[in-house]
């Protein structure tokens, strides 16, 4: 399909031009500057700043009520920020009404017009833009092919399955070729299998169209799979903005470490700092040696975070892989729980201090003999590089 066809008429805003003074090349497509929004006395979004570049697949991830949907609705124009600015292509779009923004939104419940056919739903925004009939027909056909709904054009939304409705909503919001497509929990209503295949299709679509996607989700797996960058939100603020890998391997805060994936945390204090190592005296795990973090830790009460799959198990007395030159932390304990998950097995180890340490072991061989039973004594170990030091 071609994407070079001229943009449909949008009278009041020209994002391609940008402000005359700004260096357009450095400017992100979308800039959120110190935006706040209160509902009554409840701050839904709290002095939030964020840059999104053109062509990015950006995910806003957070628990329900963290303000991610409010932020999305401010980008779409359905809510007005109490404070701060939202710049699109360098221009403040606060005074621009929703119908004049070169931004489209795919609603969580799809919001398909029940009295219109699939075709008319997709054509709705094009008619409003005053496109010629023939051009509308071409664009609708293109969109229908894009979301693989050929032959469904005449159906009403209530004659479609959930997955088909989701596609109509997607086609309708893409039809106007927005600069930015906002997706509010786009896959929440689909079942698991359909969700996985749709994730792949959304990613492929975004790559093919080169459009900027901003997706709001509470599902971290979904965000990790689809997005180039993820902004983790909590209580109206961004906790961390990073690519999925950094978010998981280098969480910026205790909250992020706990929210994204599973984690073991040891609270303690830094006792020595030599060469590239920190030694931290922890309450539950004794002295733990960690690599010095890139950003120095300012305050002293800290937490050591270790992901369960980085915690290895071995039998007491058996020498573990000592080939590694890194210092290894060893903690002894008793297996209290074994959860076999197919691809991996999660062991809960009760340390001698009483704390519970989780270890996730990949089941790499079908007839694995290296398993542990409940109440068996084991050594849990992890390298200093696998630990992340976080301020409390």
């Amino acid at each position, binding site marked *: 399909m071609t994407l070079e066809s001229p943009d449909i008429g949008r009278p009041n805003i020209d994002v391609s031009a940008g402000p005359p003074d700004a260096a357009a090349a450095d400017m992100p497509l979308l800039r959120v500057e110190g935006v706040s929004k209160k509902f009554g006395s409840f701050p839904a979004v709290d002095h939030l700043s964020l840059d999104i570049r053109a062509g990015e697949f950006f995910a806003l991830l957070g628990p329900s009520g963290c303000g991610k949907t409010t932020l999305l609705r401010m980008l779409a124009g359905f809510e007005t920020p109490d404070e701060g600015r939202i710049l699109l292509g360098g221009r403040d779009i606060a005074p621009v009404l*929703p119908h004049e923004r070169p931004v489209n*939104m795919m*609603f969580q419940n799809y919001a398909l017009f029940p009295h219109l056919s699939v075709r008319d739903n997709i054509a709705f925004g094009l008619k*409003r833009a005053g496109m010629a009939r023939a051009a509308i027909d071409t664009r609708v056909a293109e969109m229908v092919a894009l979301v693989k709904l050929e032959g469904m054009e005449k159906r009403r939304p209530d004659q479609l399955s959930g997955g088909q409705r989701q596609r109509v909503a997607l086609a309708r919001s893409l039809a106007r070729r927005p600069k930015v497509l906002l997706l509010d929990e786009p896959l929440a209503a689909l079942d698991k299998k359909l969700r996985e295949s749709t994730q792949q299709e959304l990613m492929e679509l975004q790559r093919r169209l080169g459009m900027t996607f901003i997706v709001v989700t509470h599902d971290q797996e979904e965000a990790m799979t689809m997005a180039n960058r993820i902004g983790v939100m909590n209580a109206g603020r961004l906790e961390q903005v990073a690519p999925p890998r950094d978010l998981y391997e280098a969480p910026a805060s205790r909250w992020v470490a706990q929210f994204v994936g599973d984690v073991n945390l040891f609270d303690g204090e830094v006792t020595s700092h030599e060469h590239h190592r920190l030694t931290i005296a922890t309450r539950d795990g004794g002295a733990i040696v960690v690599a010095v973090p890139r950003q120095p830790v300012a305050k002293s009460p800290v937490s050591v975070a270790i992901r369960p799959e980085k915690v290895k198990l071995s039998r007491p007395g058996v020498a573990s892989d000592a080939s590694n030159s890194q210092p290894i932390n060893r903690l002894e304990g008793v297996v209290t729980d074994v959860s076999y998950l197919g691809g991996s097995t999660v062991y809960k180890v009760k340390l001698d201090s009483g704390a519970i340490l989780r270890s996730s072991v990949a089941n790499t061989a079908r007839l694995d003999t290296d398993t542990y039973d409940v109440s068996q004594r084991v050594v849990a170990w992890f390298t200093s590089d696998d630990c992340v030091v976080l301020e409390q």
Partner: protein
Amino acid sequence: MAGRVNRLSPFNVTALALGMAFLYLPIVILVIYSFNASRLVTVWGGWSLRWYQEFFNDRAMLDAAWMSLRVAAVSATIATLLGTLAAVGLVRGERFKGRSLFSGMLYAPLVMPEVISGLSLLLLFVALNAERGFWTVTIAHTTLTMCFVTVVVQSRLASLDRSLEEAAMDLGCDPVQAFLSVTLPLIIPAIAAGWMLAFTLSLDDVVIASFTTGPGSATLPIRIYSEVRLGVKPEINAICTMVIALIAVVIVIASLASKLSNSEAKSAAPL
């Protein structure tokens, strides 16, 4: 065994028959006697359309019927316009000050005794020195029926997903266009049902009309009422039968419209 649940037991059949008889026997007798050839209301003299003919030759009665239809049509139309606007205001303007007071005041005419509404309107018209006739009755009926329209339209509107209008705005509609192109088509069946409800309410009202009408502009129910005081003529039966038929048709259309509107939105019934 599944059929057993739906099958009517002899007890249910009897109860249903008695209930129906209680409700409809008087009306059935009235309809049958409207085809009576005899001049005496209580004596059966064979089938005839004589009294229908009589009605169509009765100038005063025809005028009253025409007056009633005009009042019903005009007041229902004004009530529908105002009632729909009130419903939109109540549902959409969720947080405006005095909303609950406004909605309470809007519903008051629903429970207000008609004698009181009629009397207060009469006093108003007298105070304004308005000449009583077609327009005073029409205005009075509009105030009576508007709140019924509001109730019907409001429940439909409340069941509509708010994000539909937002989606329309997102796709290039200003708020007015969004309402006209998305919301209005979805609430049209409720608006139609509201109009028909208002029409039938106006058509059979005696109390308010008798307070607010003037000499020479009696509505059909007033005319019938004054005729009956001089003794029941079989002609009255014929007129009543035609009114019943008209109202039955309107009610069936209204309930079909509201059913259609609900099956589209799969939501609570407005009627």
